[in-house]
């Protein structure tokens, strides 16, 4: 369904947009299968209404919110962000949504809230990857992710409810997902049902599966290679055919250093990848 926005920003990065059809047919969403083509094929039946999101844990006002109410109350912005996958491909996507900080403030986090833990819907009946370990790539479900509180409150951190002027398609994480543009794509958890503010660093799915390959922070960093491939460059998925793609140098923090580098001033990013 169409979704209108009150403002649009690309944060000074004027890259050409990835065409909508590529964003809709090339997805990592293992709940619907591990091949890039699986989510588009298998997610169309996902029931995204009604959908409630709960915000709980270290908050003064725990909330259970209906997604449509949320979309209607918070002003929707368009944010054109780079998305850098840990597999060394990237896209440029016009997201629609609102800052996570605006949502969290509604729940009044307590002073003990140091991290934010996110959880995807767990529904093996709707998600074949959760029903079978074979189809789901052998990862533990529900998918969980997390951010440090200051990362979560950074103005760039977006809760997305749409892209390209429409509400989110199921394969892209409908009806509500996270977008953290300076981190590898797997941090940007899809189809969220629960947000929990916590005192200690929460577990994250890919880190549980292979901690030496996927860290908690997962900041885009051309100097820290994945153990099995280089992160120094990336294949940008743009308009045009297979051979017209470009391999471009990867930028530290995916090019958003101006906005986020200060968050990591005291962090050894070789150790805390």
């Amino acid at each position, binding site marked *: 369904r169409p979704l209108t926005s009150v403002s649009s920003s690309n944060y000074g990065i004027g890259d050409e947009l990835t065409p909508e059809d*590529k964003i809709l047919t*090339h997805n990592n969403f293992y709940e619907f299968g591990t091949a890039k*083509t699986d989510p*588009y094929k298998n997610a169309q039946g996902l029931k995204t209404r009604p959908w409630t999101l709960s915000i709980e844990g270290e908050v003064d006002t725990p909330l259970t919110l209906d997604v449509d109410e949320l979309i209607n109350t918070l002003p929707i912005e368009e944010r054109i962000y780079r998305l850098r996958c840990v597999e060394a491909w990237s896209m440029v996507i016009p997201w629609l949504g609102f800052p996570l900080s605006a949502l969290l403030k509604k729940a009044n986090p307590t002073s003990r809230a140091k991290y934010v833990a996110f959880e995807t819907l767990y529904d093996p009946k709707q998600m074949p990857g959760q029903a079978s*370990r074979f189809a789901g790539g*052998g990862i533990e479900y529900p998918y969980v992710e997390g951010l440090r509180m200051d990362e979560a409150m950074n103005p760039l951190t977006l809760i997305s409810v749409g892209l390209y002027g429409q509400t989110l398609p199921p394969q892209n994480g409908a009806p509500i997902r996270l977008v953290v543009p300076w981190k590898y794509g797997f941090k940007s958890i899809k189809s969220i049902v629960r947000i929990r503010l916590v005192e200690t660093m929460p577990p994250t799915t890919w880190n549980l599966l292979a901690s030496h390959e996927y860290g908690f922070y997962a900041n885009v960093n051309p100097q820290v290679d994945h153990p*099995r491939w280089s992160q120094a460059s990336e294949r940008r*998925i743009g308009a045009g055919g297979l051979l017209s793609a470009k391999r471009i140098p990867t930028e530290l923090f995916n090019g958003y250093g101006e906005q986020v580098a200060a968050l990591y001033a005291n962090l050894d990013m070789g150790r805390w990848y």
Partner: protein
Amino acid sequence: MTLTQGRLLALKTLLHLCFLLPLLYLAAAVQGGAAGGDPVQYVIHFLGMGALHGLMASLLVSPLARWWKLGALVRVRRLLGLWTFAYALLHLGAFLVLDLLGDWALLLSEVVRRPYIVVGMLALLILTALALTSTQGMQRRLGRRWQRLHNWVYLVALLAPVHFWWSVKSGWYEPALYLMLCLGLLALRPKLWNFKSFQQIVTNFNRG
């Protein structure tokens, strides 16, 4: 049943189609969008799996020939091996052209630094040597050494599934299944079980 000239020809034609048609399907899937909005990984994976299937088919020939007492069956082995090589070469080509976008320097640095690529390259190198010496002329010229050289395919049968396993981000079931199948195909070779003849093969490996 005997394998007459006509039947052998029919079988060979069928096997050629088994490798040719998937390539046509792949081209159509890329063109028509069935391979997704960004088919790079799809193409690479498809070709790699094709090579693995070809390898397993070629390793199945001599056990089948033995069970069915059909010596002439081994005459399809060359085409299976050459198709395996072709798929493996296309697999590397797709990685280099579509994923790395022709960045040779990146390929070389990846080959040196990434163990799963080293393993894959080693397997391809062996397949190249086997393909180049697959003609009857080379077989005659190499004499006894030809069989020794072509025993290296047993090593490929280990390297290829290991390369597959190592390359996936998660989900070990499928690669584990392929490794088991490859081990099974090796286990069907009595000469690899017999310690003495196994030793002989290893000695031959060492001698090259």
